[in-house]
C-alpha cells in the first residue's frame, strides 16, 4: 500500500494543473538547469514536493500512524523588460518617437515582482478554496490543510531576465495505514444488525443475528 503522502502530493499536483487555466505551470519535481526564458510570462512555475513529515510517537504502534505533512510549493518567475520595439526598430520612426518609447519602458524587476505576487495569490486561492479542503481526494483522506507561510526571495537582477523565486509552505495531516509488502486480507464478519425500539417499555436495544 502506498503511503498517503504520495497520494496527497499527486492529487495536489493534479488540482493545480486542473485550475491553472493557462496562467502557470506545475511541476512535481525539482527541475535541473532550466533556462530563465522557460519561466517567463505564463510559464511561471510552481514546483510541488514533499519536504517533511512528522509522526506522533504517542500512538498505537500497530497503526494507523498520524502523519503531519509539509509540502513546499516553490514559485519561479522570470521576466524581461517590455518596450515598444515596433517603434524603436522602425527605420522611419522619429527621434522623439523613440525617446517616448524608451521612456515608457516597463522594468523587468517591477514586472517580475508583480507577476510573483499575482502567482502567490492564485495558488493560495486554489489551495485554500473551501471546495478543495480535501485537496481533490475523497472526504476525510486529508485533514487540517493549511498554508503556514509564504516566502519571497530577493530578486536576481543580473542577466537578460530577472528571476524571482520563493515558496509557499502547505501542511496537512493524514493517517498512514501500513499493510506491509504482502498484505493479509482481514476476515469478514457477515451478519444482520437490527435495532429494536419497544414503544411500550421505552426500551431500545440491539438484536444481533450473526452467522
Amino acid at each position, binding site marked *: 500500500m502506498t503511503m498517503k503522502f504520495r497520494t496527497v502530493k499527486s492529487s495536489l499536483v493534479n488540482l493545480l494543473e486542473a485550475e491553472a487555466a493557462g496562467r502557470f505551470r506545475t511541476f512535481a519535481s*525539482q527541475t*535541473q*538547469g*532550466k*533556462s*530563465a526564458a522557460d*519561466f517567463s510570462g505564463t510559464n511561471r512555475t510552481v514546483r510541488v514536493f514533499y519536504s517533511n513529515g512528522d509522526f506522533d510517537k504517542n500512538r498505537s504502534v500497530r497503526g494507523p500512524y498520524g502523519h503531519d505533512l509539509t509540502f*513546499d510549493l*516553490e514559485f*519561479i518567475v*522570470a521576466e*524581461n*523588460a*517590455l*518596450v*515598444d*520595439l*515596433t517603434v*524603436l*526598430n522602425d527605420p522611419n520612426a*522619429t*527621434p*522623439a*518617437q*523613440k*525617446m517616448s518609447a*524608451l*521612456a*515608457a*519602458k*516597463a*522594468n*523587468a*524587476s517591477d514586472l517580475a515582482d508583480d507577476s510573483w505576487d499575482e502567482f502567490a495569490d492564485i495558488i493560495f486561492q486554489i489551495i485554500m478554496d473551501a471546495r478543495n479542503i480535501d485537496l481533490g481526494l475523497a472526504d476525510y483522506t486529508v485533514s487540517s490543510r493549511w498554508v503556514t507561510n509564504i516566502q519571497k*526571495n*530577493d530578486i*536576481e*537582477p*543580473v*542577466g*537578460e*531576465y*530577472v*528571476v524571482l*523565486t*520563493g*515558496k509557499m509552505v502547505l501542511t496537512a495531516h493524514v493517517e498512514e495505514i501500513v499493510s506491509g509488502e504482502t498484505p493479509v486480507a482481514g476476515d469478514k464478519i457477515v451478519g444482520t444488525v437490527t435495532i429494536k425500539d419497544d414503544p411500550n417499555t421505552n426500551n431500545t436495544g440491539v438484536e444481533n443475528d450473526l452467522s
Partner: protein
Amino acid sequence: MVANLRKRAEQDLAVTLEGPDWGMPIELVSPTTGQEYSVNGQVIYKTLETDPTTGVRILVEKPVVTVRLSSLSEKPNPGETWLVRIPRAPEADEPKDNYVTEIAHEHGRSIGFIRLPLTKAGQS
C-alpha cells in the same frame, strides 16, 4: 612625442575592442535624443547559474557590451535606459536581438570604455 601609457592603452581599444578580430557591430539608441549610434565593440555572452535559498538552479544569459567612449558622440549616463541591439551570436551577419540597459553600467574611467550589462527587451 610618445603618448603616456594611459593614452596608448585607450588608443589600443581601436584594436582590442573595435578591431575586426574582436569587435562586433552594436547599435545603441539614446533615451535623451532618440538618436541611433552604430559602433563596434565587445560582446560577452555569459551564462549565470543562480542558486538562491530554495536550491533552484536557473541558467540566465548575462550579455555584457563594452564600447569605447571616444567612439560615442553621446555617452550613457547612470540611470538612463538605452536600447542596445547586439548580434545573437558572435558570427558574421547574425540577426540582432533587442536589449535595454536597466543595470548600472561600469565606466572604465581609467582607460576609456564603458561596460553595459543588458536586460532582454520584449514587445510591450
